[in-house]
């Protein structure tokens, strides 16, 4: 149904009705939010509008659900909240989307224009608060501007390097009346195209390199360039590592893939990076968790940096050759010779063999990495894993198998504990045909545990795999290693009965702690009807290995001691 045809010229509409209409014209069908005082006119116009609103139980949950929705659809996820605390509760979700370049449109209620700047009830300057964490933002001052601003916001959020765009809507605008004013098409800067000479130069550099390596970053998924990238790798015959957000760009089992690099990366990837003589970085930004000590990162390599964002070039590591372009056309234009490099290939293979993950850890309890590996052996083809943040997040990155980057939703830049469950809600709403598994920890799950109510309210079929080590595991690990075992505020021996909590929210749940129970419990989780939680107790002293200590070079990885838990 084309709603726009229902609008008669000069028809008087409320600002909220115009907003809802503008959202629809931008393709919105589902969004996430929480009502309150100043956004009430919009919620009034929502009734009967045909838009599906998901009431999350905390605004942060709504923003992170919009993030999950935006990641898997590559279209802006939409969230909405009232002014004051509603708006400030969105902030973590907005920052999360900003750091990971996720398209998102955020609509906040605001006190009436005449009261702005008077410390009115539930007034905060959310426009000011979010300036550092949005791609752009608006305060609506005229009802007639709403269609233009909404159109621009959606275009900006998903064009170029995507990001969150905030629209602050004073109540006099949302409650006032006016007419629909057609907006001219938004004028946005054209996407950058690669310099032909630079592409030629890249081809030459790759052809003559003796030990080339490619880093696949999150930008490849964001720009929907996975197939072009794989074709490029296959044609050029290059080994590939990936950042956390680049996992799945190459299938985990692909012979050219040497694993994830960085702080908790695979030894093969880190040694390949440190020993390569040419590093081609595609859609990645040299985050410190990926590079380790920057000055010692890939010291003997020249760098080709391909990215759509000119501000990323030479921000941290000087690029010997910069290609600012949409990724796919640039990758198509780089035509290096596929040279045999038997020594380098053999070396990469040897590292892969040497640093292959082991699952024979001593200990009597369930070993989380093994459980994750085994889950991926029986996983359905169409599975999305969302993560919280901590040890379990790193184990997912290390031990799960991904065939596509959109199968792995992880809070990379911001590292937001509490991301997993709302992101899973957003992903499942966007892709109801997929099996969505939220892998969480006993620390993280409590950050947005209220969203269990959202699962139950809408019958959203999310599977929660909860690893419980009765600790804030990654912080505990750092205190063990870097703070001489001086444990401070990391023990969670007083955790609630998580399965009981889930059941109280109407979610079926099971608890397991014996290794022999693990396989059947995972099978139960994946095949259960509707939302379910599998609560898995694990050793509280288990660590994530390897670990590059902060500020050290990537080849200086710490490895597990032979005695597990030390």
């Amino acid at each position: 149904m084309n709603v726009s045809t229902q609008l008669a010229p000069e028809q008087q509409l409320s600002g909220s009705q115009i907003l809802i209409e503008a959202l629809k014209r931008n393709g919105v069908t589902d969004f996430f939010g929480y009502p309150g005082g100043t956004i009430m006119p919009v919620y009034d116009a929502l009734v009967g509008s045909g838009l599906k609103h998901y009431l999350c139980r905390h605004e942060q949950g709504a923003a992170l659900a919009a993030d999950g929705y935006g990641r898997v659809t590559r279209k802006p996820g939409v969230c909405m909240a009232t002014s004051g605390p509603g708006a400030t509760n969105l902030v973590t979700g907005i920052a999360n989307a900003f750091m990971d370049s996720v398209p998102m449109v955020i609509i906040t209620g605001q006190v009436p224009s005449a009261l702005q700047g008077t410390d009115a009830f539930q007034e905060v300057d959310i426009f000011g608060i979010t300036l550092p964490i949005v791609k752009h933002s608006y305060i609506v001052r005229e009802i007639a501007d709403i269609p233009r601003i909404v159109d621009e916001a959606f275009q900006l959020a998903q064009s170029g390097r995507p990001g969150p765009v905030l629209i602050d809507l004073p109540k006099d605008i949302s409650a006032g009346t006016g007419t629909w004013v057609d907006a001219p098409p938004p004028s946005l800067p054209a996407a950058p195209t690669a310099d032909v000479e630079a592409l030629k130069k890249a081809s030459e550099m790759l052809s003559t390199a003796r030990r080339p390596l490619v880093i696949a970053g999150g930008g490849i998924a964001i720009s929907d360039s996975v197939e072009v990238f794989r074709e490029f790798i296959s044609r050029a015959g290059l080994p590939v590592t990936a950042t956390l957000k680049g996992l799945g760009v190459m299938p985990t089992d692909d012979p050219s893939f040497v694993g994830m690099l960085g702080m908790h990366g695979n030894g093969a990837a880190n040694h390949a990076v440190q020993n390569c003589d040419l590093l081609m970085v595609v859609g990645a930004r040299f985050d410190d968790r990926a590079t380790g000590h920057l000055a010692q990162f890939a010291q003997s390599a020249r760098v080709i940096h391909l990215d759509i964002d000119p501000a990323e070039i030479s921000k941290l590591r000087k690029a010997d050759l910069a290609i600012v372009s949409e990724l796919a056309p640039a990758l198509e234009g780089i035509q290096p010779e596929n040279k045999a490099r038997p020594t380098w290939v053999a070396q990469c293979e040897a590292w892969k063999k040497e640093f292959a993950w082991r699952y024979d850890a001593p200990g009597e309890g369930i070993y989380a990495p093994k459980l994750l590996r085994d889950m991926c052996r029986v996983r359905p083809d169409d599975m999305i894993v969302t993560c919280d943040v901590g040890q379990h997040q790193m184990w997912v990155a290390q031990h799960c198998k991904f065939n596509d980057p959109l199968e792995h939703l992880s809070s990379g830049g911001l590292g937001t504990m509490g991301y997993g469950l709302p992101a899973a809600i957003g992903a499942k709403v966007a892709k109801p045909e997929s099996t969505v598994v939220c892998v969480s920890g006993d620390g993280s799950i409590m950050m947005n545990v209220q969203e269990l109510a959202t699962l139950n309210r809408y019958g959203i079929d999310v599977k929660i795999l909860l690893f419980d080590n009765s600790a804030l595991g990654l912080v505990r690990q750092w205190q063990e290693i870097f703070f001489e075992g001086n444990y401070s505020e990391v023990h969670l021996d007083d955790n609630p009965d998580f399965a009981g909590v889930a059941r109280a929210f109407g979610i079926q749940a099971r608890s397991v702690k014996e290794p022999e129970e693990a396989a059947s419990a995972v099978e139960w989780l994946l095949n259960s009807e509707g939302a379910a939680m599998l609560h898995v107790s694990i050793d509280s002293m288990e660590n994530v290995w390897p670990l590059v200590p902060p500020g050290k070079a990537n080849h200086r990885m710490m490895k597990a001691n032979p005695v597990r838990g030390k």
Partner: protein
Amino acid sequence: MNHTLHIQLSSVEGAVIRALGLIERRGFSLVKCSVSELDGAVRDMEVTVSSTRPGDLLKRQLERLHDVFTVELKPVASTQKQQPGIRPVTRRI
């Protein structure tokens, strides 16, 4: 080192503070700043900033802002030591 940037930007609400906030946040200390209105829609801003970071990086970061139309970078010789209060270039651990 000091850098002077000539910025033309939209006169919409928030554009100036967005640009100034970015400058400080990205590790550049404001030494001098003037803003004037060219016409109803465009403002002209000239800033001198001090930083150990390269000025062309700040230029590219400013150019990303939707409100910013053009940025011109004019290098100037540093005549004084680092401004007090400059944010050091450190990396988080």
